[in-house]
């Protein structure tokens, strides 16, 4: 093998692919060959770096330079300047949001320098399609260590020591969950990976599966060894075709290397792994519903007990953890439970990956120690609010979570403190909202989602969310009454307490937290019939500023209901009675004469 002095890493995750990284990859290969550098420069495709907004991302080692939004046209310059002459291509370097500083090195970018990567440690660093690169980064060393020098009980006890808790939402201690399954009588047991990442706004599981699939596989195998299981399922959303492709490839490679199969590493441990594609139902993220779906049934939750640890998949003892949880396990076994426990807060150990999205400068995945404050995440790593607007709220935990306000910015993020504030860790979606976001609209948005995804099995969830949604629709269309707020609150509490599964039990959270922290916004909608954020279309009107109107008539021409009148001599006017508030006029006006009020 030749000595490659430089490695050019091109992200081929879903985000960067959507921005055109495949053609950048091909162009780089072509240009490197053309310049005769193909014997000394390696071109590698990787998974997600987590900074999708800046994609396609190209990282060049050994310098560790990160280039953003690289296009095919930039390729000759990168090869000529950086790879041939050793000069940085300044204009493609990451620039801080205030446009002042260009950051030459990957690890110095604030988005990355404050992170502590455990679950994401290989994402964007290795080629996920090559098991050898994973092994080069100590991959499967934890499995080898466990199989050759640890008893299953010892693996279990390391996980208990680590304090790892479920990263999918509930935060249940992983070691304890494993122990239930280990102790359950039965000679056939299953381990399952929940990769049905359904929370809108969360994509860390997709990133891990795409960028480091072997970490998940190795984690599952360690769990299987500790619990006495010999078969596993990965239940992955069909909306993640690339993740499924990478998993299929990774499993085949692991089998070829004898790391999956019968008598792994000449021991008594055998393991077989299957992939199941989900069919598009949010409720399948709930573990009993997920198992029903693997069995080929409608994905509806069942009452617990019996718990899956005793009676799970096909009636056998089973253990389900989500992708991020499994990806942490090899690190715990390799470095020891107490190493993991030394990171984080007293009750929440280790790190958590957050999907930082919404009205923030740097969107993407950040992995931080538990206990990091929201301010650090949003302002330091996220680079603050888009267009320097005012921060209003952050929504944590997806449709099951809640909205937190400015007063929570210094809240250390861990399971307990979030729950106390009315949100939840959930899967780690973190959506930033600014002054243009209407909180009533947001809670309606989430409720629409949970209402649609309610499986319909239990009445409180099916009917309760429906009634709550009707009330919110009334309020956002200006027909609400003050007493509706009380009814809404009562319903919310009822749904929360009486629903069968996690979906219903958490569905009211967005409504409850917005009622708690933004009650005045609800009241403005009801009393003044106004939406100050100008998001609720029924409560706003489109108007034309006669001083700015150049009488071009574009608005009238494009209006679908022909409610705009005027001519070459008279400024155009919108007939408010007929207007359907579609916003077309505002979109087409070349002079910004149309505005919302």
């Amino acid at each position, binding site marked *: 093998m030749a000595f490659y002095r430089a490695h050019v890493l091109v992200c081929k995750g879903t*985000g960067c692919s959507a921005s055109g990284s495949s053609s950048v990859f091909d162009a780089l290969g072509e240009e490197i060959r053309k310049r005769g550098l193909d014997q000394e420069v390696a071109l590698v495709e990787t998974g997600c770096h987590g900074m999708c907004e800046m994609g396609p991302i190209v990282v060049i080692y050994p310098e560790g330079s990160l280039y953003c939004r690289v296009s095919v046209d930039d390729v000759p310059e990168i090869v000529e300047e950086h790879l041939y002459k050793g000069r940085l291509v300044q204009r493609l370097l990451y620039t801080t949001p205030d446009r002042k500083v260009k950051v030459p090195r990957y690890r110095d970018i604030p988005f990355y320098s404050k992170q502590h990567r455990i679950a994401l440690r290989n994402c964007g660093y290795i080629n996920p399609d090559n098991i050898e690169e994973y092994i080069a980064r100590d991959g499967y060393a934890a499995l080898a260590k466990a199989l050759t020098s640890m008893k299953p009980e010892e693996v279990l006890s390391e996980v208990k020591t680590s304090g790892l808790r479920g990263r999918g939402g509930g935060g249940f201690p992983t070691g304890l969950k494993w122990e239930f399954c280990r102790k359950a009588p039965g000679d056939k047991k299953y381990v399952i990976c929940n990769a049905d990442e359904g929370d809108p706004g969360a994509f860390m599981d997709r990133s891990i599966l795409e960028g480091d699939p072997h970490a998940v596989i190795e984690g599952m195998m360690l769990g299987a060894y500790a619990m006495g299981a010999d078969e596993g399922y990965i239940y992955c959303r069909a909306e993640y075709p690339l993740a499924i492709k990478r998993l299929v490839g990774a499993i085949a490679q692991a089998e070829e290397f004898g790391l999956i199969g019968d008598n792994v590493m000449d021991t008594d441990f055998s393991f077989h792994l299957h992939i199941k594609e989900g*069919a598009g139902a949010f409720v399948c993220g709930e573990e009993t519903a997920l198992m029903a779906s693997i069995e080929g049934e*409608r994905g509806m939750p069942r009452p617990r007990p019996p718990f899956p640890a005793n009676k799970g998949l096909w009636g056998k003892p089973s253990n389900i953890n989500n992708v991020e949880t499994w990806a942490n396990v090899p690190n715990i076994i390799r470095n020891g439970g107490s190493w993991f426990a030394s990171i984080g807060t007293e009750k929440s150990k280790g790190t958590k990956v957050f999907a930082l999205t919404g009205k923030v400068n740097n969107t993407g995945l950040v992995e931080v120690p538990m206990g990091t404050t929201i301010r650090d995440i949003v302002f330091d790593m996220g680079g603050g609010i888009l267009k320097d607007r005012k921060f209003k709220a952050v929504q944590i935990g997806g449709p099951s979570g809640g909205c937190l306000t400015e007063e929570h910015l210094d809240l250390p993020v861990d399971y307990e403190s979030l729950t106390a504030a009315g949100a939840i860790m959930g899967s780690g979606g973190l959506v930033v909202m600014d002054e243009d976001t209407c909180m009533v609209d947001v809670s309606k948005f989430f409720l629409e989602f949970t209402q649609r995804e309610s499986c319909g099995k239990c009445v409180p969830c099916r009917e309760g969310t429906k009634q709550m949604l009707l009330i919110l629709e009334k309020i956002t269309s200006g027909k609400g009454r003050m007493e509706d707020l009380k009814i809404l609150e009562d319903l919310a509490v009822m749904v929360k307490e009486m629903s069968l599964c996690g979906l219903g039990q958490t569905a009211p959270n967005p409504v409850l937290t917005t009622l708690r922290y933004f009650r005045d916004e609800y009241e403005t909608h009801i009393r003044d019939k106004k939406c100050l954020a100008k998001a609720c279309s029924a409560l706003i009107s489109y108007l034309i500023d006669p001083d700015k109107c150049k009488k071009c008539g574009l608005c009238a021409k494009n209006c679908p209901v022909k409610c705009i009148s005027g001519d070459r001599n008279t400024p155009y006017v919108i007939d408010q009675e007929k207007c359907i508030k579609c916003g077309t006029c505002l979109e087409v006006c070349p002079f910004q004469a149309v505005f919302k009020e």
Partner: protein
Amino acid sequence: MSPKKPEMEERTKQIVAPWKGRHGGTIPVLQEVQKEFGYLPEDALMVISREMKIPPSELFGVATFYAQFHLKPRGRHIIRVCRGTACHVRGSLAILDKIKKVLQIEENGTTEDLRYTLEPVACLGACGLAPVMMVDEETHGRLTPDKVMETLGSYE
């Protein structure tokens, strides 16, 4: 261009064959049949029911439970507009409305020429590029109402 009934039944039988007598086959079989025909034709469902010994009621129950399955023919290109949180706060509703307006279809509707089917989806997991849509297997990000129709035009 839907296949003739006998051919359809024959092909469905082939898809079912490896799953006969095994558990957990319902959803993979439905996925495979839908991949073959683009949707789940009633005749094919009846074949699955007979061959796998699953009552039609149960089979239809599963097929209608999951958002992924369709009982009616769909367009050549599936437009999935992301309606996740990140996309919502960055204006995905305007994208969806624009497509509806231009193509003259409703959510989950298909254009008359069977060129496009429009399906809002909960989240595509590409939140960093919000607002996002997927056309068939390709993801397109940082959309604007103007850009969206241009992108769609390239799918014949």
